């Protein structure tokens, strides 16, 4: 079925409202659907959150073609780069999926999870018993959702086994980011937070460090369960970024999407001048940065002196910030979806 209706370009509203509108105009209120659109390059791209919805609306020229599929018989392979050129007729793909009886692709993720929520990084430089996990706290409402506690662990030292105090994950909140990644578990020992060793720090200090880094949290843990460790067969992979090692055991359910943005920077502060529009605060002179990074490197170096991580190989990526930012400043332009556009049913 085709429907044609209008939207106000300057006030597209939220994705949920748009989704509701689609269900409404198609009279399919309780059917789960996948929504996609064709961008200017002819690619079929998903619409499943506010960001890509707004992006889609902004590309309308002036028409925006939107494709809706039932979730249960959706063809995920229809999405992605070159989809429209690869398959001559995207419509036929979408509308007649029965024609393509070939084996379905391995479903790696639901489209709404396309944005990375977590990754294992630095696999190549860490001991196999350790895992460095990066949690991406975007604008999602999903809480980070874990708790830490004091505890003690046994270390091998030149003087034999020694019991040393440590920090452990004590609880995962159901439905939280930490739990949903499957990369962290109760009783995992926390060794580092964003490149800073936690040994010698109190529970409260570590708590503050984690919260201070909560928008881009990189935790190095020694998993309580050592059976799912990455088994390395070569040291050929690059030194930075997340790992997409193929040797990951299939039992780890998460997967890493395409996340190669290593933007320098963390959260950008926002400024509103003369009660105008909020905008990010830009960086000033570059000279200052060198000073700053210098001090960071010094500190990093210091903190790894007595660690059991190979400090020389330490990569400085973990001190880099997150890749995204959110706006929570009340935006005067962002209001409830206004349904003043006439709905035209074809």
């Amino acid at each position, binding site marked *: 079925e085709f429907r044609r209706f209008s939207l106000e370009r300057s006030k597209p509203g939220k994705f949920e409202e748009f989704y509701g509108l689609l269900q409404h105009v198609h009279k399919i209120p309780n059917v789960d659907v996948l929504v996609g659109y064709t961008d200017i390059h002819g690619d079929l791209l998903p619409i499943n959150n506010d960001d890509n919805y707004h992006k889609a609306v902004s590309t309308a020229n002036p028409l925006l073609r939107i494709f809706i599929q039932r979730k249960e018989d959706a063809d995920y392979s229809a999405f992605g780069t070159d989809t429209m050129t690869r398959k001559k007729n995207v419509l036929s793909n979408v509308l007649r999926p029965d024609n393509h009886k070939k084996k379905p692709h391995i479903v790696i993720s639901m489209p709404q999870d396309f944005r990375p929520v977590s990754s294992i990084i630095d696999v190549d430089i860490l001991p196999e018993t350790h895992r460095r996990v990066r949690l991406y706290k975007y604008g999602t409402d999903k809480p980070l959702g874990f708790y830490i506690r004091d505890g003690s662990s046994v270390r091998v030292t030149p003087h034999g086994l020694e019991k040393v105090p440590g920090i452990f994950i004590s609880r995962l909140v159901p439905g939280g980011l930490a739990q949903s990644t499957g990369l962290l578990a109760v009783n995992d020992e926390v060794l580092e937070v964003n490149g800073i060793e936690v040994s010698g720090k*109190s529970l409260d200090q570590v708590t503050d460090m984690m919260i201070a880094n909560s928008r881009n949290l990189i935790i190095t843990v020694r998993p309580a369960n050592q059976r799912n460790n990455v088994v390395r067969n070569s040291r050929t992979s690059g030194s930075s970024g997340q790992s997409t090692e193929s040797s990951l055991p299939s039992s780890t359910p998460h997967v890493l999407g395409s996340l190669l943005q290593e933007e320098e920077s963390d959260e950008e502060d926002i400024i509103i001048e003369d009660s105008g529009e909020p905008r990010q605060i830009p960086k000033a002179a570059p000279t200052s940065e060198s000073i700053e990074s210098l001090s960071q490197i010094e500190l990093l170096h210091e903190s790894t002196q007595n660690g059991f991580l190979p400090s020389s190989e330490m990569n400085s990526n973990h001190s880099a910030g997150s890749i995204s930012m959110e706006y929570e400043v009340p935006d005067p332009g962002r209001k409830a979806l206004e349904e003043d556009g006439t709905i035209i049913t074809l």
Partner: protein
Amino acid sequence: LSQTVEHGFPHQPSALGYSPFLRLMVIGTRSGAIKLYGAPGVEFMGLHEENNTVMQIHFIPDQCQLVTLLDDNSLHLWSLKQHGGASELREEHRFTLKGPPGSPPSATQVTAVLPHSSREVLYLGTESGTIFVVEVPSLRVLEDRSITSEAVLQRVPEDNCNRRACELVEALREHPKNPDQILIGYSRGLIVLWDLQNNKVTHHFLGSQQLENLYWQRDGSKFISCHYDGSYTQWPVSSDNRQPEPLENTVPYGPFPCKAISKIYWQTTKNGLPYIIFQGGMPRASYGDRHSISVIHGSHQTAFDFTSRVIDFFIIFSSEPSAEFDDPAAMVVLAEEELVVIDLKTPGWPAVHPPYLASLHCSAITCSHHVSNIPLKLWERIISAGSKQNIHYSAMPWPIDGGTNIAPDPPQRDLLLTGHEDGTVRFWDASGVCLHLLYKLSTVRVFLTDADPNDNMNTLGEDEWPPLRKVGTFDPYSDDPRLGIQKIYLCKYSGYLAVAGTAGQVLVMELNDEDAEHVVDHAEADLLQDQEGYRWKGHEKLKTRDGAVRFEAGFQPFVLVQCQPPAVVTSLALHSEWKLVAFGTSHGFGLFDHQQKRLVFVKCTLHPSDQLALEGPLSRVKSLKKSLRQSFRRIRRSRVSSRKRRGGGNASEVQEANAKFDQDALQEMELAPVQRKIEARSAEDSFTGFVRTLYFADTFLRDSSRHCPSLWAGTNGGTVYAFCLRVPPAERRMDEPVRAEQAKEIQLMHRAPVVGILVLDGRSTPLPEPLEVAHDLSKSPDMQGSHQLLVVSEEQFKVFTLPKVSSKLKLKLTALEGCRVRKVTVANFGSCKTDDYSENDLAVLTNLGDIQIISLPFLKLQIRYPCIRKEDVSGIASCVFTKYGQGFYLISPSEFERFSLSTKWLVEPRCIVDMPEVTSNNHVHNKSGVENAARKSSSFSYSFVERKSGRLMEHALLNDEKVLKEIQSTLEGGR
């Protein structure tokens, strides 16, 4: 970092001692500290390693030595020795009395200590009744000289005394004229005079009442005993009657049952009428809860009534052996919470204003503010205002005046202002070692409170019995917590003072040298503005007094702004040049023009979802506080009854049980899993609108060509607001309104509370204080180069450019170290080598109690010192920095610790205690009839006289350490 001196009153004092010879007083505390005080500036501190309660302190007569008894029954010998030109207090020996194997602990439990005037031995009375003799300074027991109860009982008629009569030695007193005789008082009432030469009882006095204490009359012909039933008894001592009857037995506050008299003095005077001074003895039923010391002199009788428990007291009297009479000059009373000194020479017995040991907490301290380098003019005016308040004090010079202060004069005049729960602000001279009260300001007068100002405790008429008189200033019970002072800002150039309190009140004051009666202009600032549907559940605002109010000379309020809702004021800034005051609460902030007396604007910072801030969490806190206060009152009452260690076994059992309980509770706490939630901060968190900091700056807010006055505010949710102000020029200041317009709003994405905002000028120097330039005390700021904005949140330091805000630099403290900023200030560090170098840095106190110095403008961490224990939350919260790298924080409710980060400015006690001239007749031993023990010491004192003869010479010698050591060893050898 050096922690230099403790100001204020020692927390939980437990013992008092005095040396009439050195004219030094010593106070021991329950944490094992001893503090010596003499002339102002002369202070020493010592700490027992054991951290046990100090039970008793005794000076060795005519020596720079003292002995302490701790509650673990250990004895410690301390001495004052000169080292490097200044005296130091050091522990020399420690010793615990050991009984024969198998004897019960009570056999050696020391109850009374008598340092003998021969300076050779200590007599230690014990619970078992045996008196042990210990040699000084070696602290070795001389077993053959012990006085056992068997020996005492030999001469006492058997029908009067059984074996138990000699249990527990309550008091030991040396005969004032004959060092060979000591008076021994046993708890059950038996008193004997013991002859040390012949080792036998010469007299015995059969008291029927349980004994508390003894005191000799100066000539040794009589002594006085005081008892558990509130009576005292005089006993004659003469050679003809070996078992005299009492001369007089009095129950001063009878006839109804009275409480014990625990200590008594009998002081002779030239006019013949003695002073009888005793502690306690009040009628049990009606006045049993009073902490009193009574002074009786002829027909004059006053019972000084203290607001806290009396720990101990002593009388300063003529100690010259040649003097015929005691002629008491002053009474020094150590109460649990304050030191009170009463002038006994001036009629009416007024109190003496102590130059130190101020009770900082006479009402709980709620905030403090430090102002460095006060101009002389303002200083004098504050002192003059304060002196008018102190007219009821005695004019007597401070009687405890031993030692010499050799510290250099304080480099500048510094004021420490403390705000208190009862609505007062106290101005302290914080320039030197003695924190001295200059002036007390009360804001209560502006408001109508439930408490009637005339309703003080001193309403007893002249014929009232007992003749109680309230003394001291300690009164921790504020009747209206809304009066509490929360923020203080003093402009030292103009004398404008702004104070803000718990119920949203902001007062602007001016210094006036005369009393005045005037109306306080009153305005209300509705910080919620158009926000609707909110209900404030906290306390009501304070009611104001209508019409003109009379104010005494000093700071007099002329403007009152009350915030609505009346939440506690969380930040305050005053600009004396622009005549503006800014204030903030958990709801928003406002700006008031105190020249035109007009509210310029208000800004609500509240997040719509923040219900907690709206309801006023204080409503709950208040009721909790009230109940706490009541339970403190109860505790205070019950403490009195359980004071004495009588029935010792029982008490220690209770103590043990308590300790065990504490330990169990502690263990339980440790076992409980402590976990911390890791969650990002969100805009919806509570108290995001709480205004943490306000700052005035003349800077480039809108464009780089014109600078203008501006007001900056930072909130708990990481938001910074900047308002552009238009202040009319001076000539039209009254005609045109001050205008404000919001120019910028910065949201820090890490959302940590903003605790400091600062603008750096073109030379990267912090902007000067208002009027600082006008008074030629600062270079004018550089308005050519571009200005920078420094925003300090609890987690990060960030520098932004101005006027276009772009981020330039940052230091992510929390992410790197896991600590958070609690206090931050700009401190100027001068070089101790050269006068022309100084630099500005940030002094930062973190939640871990560390102090970090961070450079400006590059935000590089320079150095870090551990300063306050991280568990000491109130210590960290109370910390104030000075402008020149010193600081103060509370180590107890009543004591400020002073510290210094600066090599240049260091205020610490440095003093010398010289042995006073030892004249031959100063020693009773040098009189006729001295036995051999004393003779040795006379030769020693001779060598001393010699040393003292040339004072000039001595001074030269003192600077030479080698010579000093030699003198020391000679002295020790001589002993």
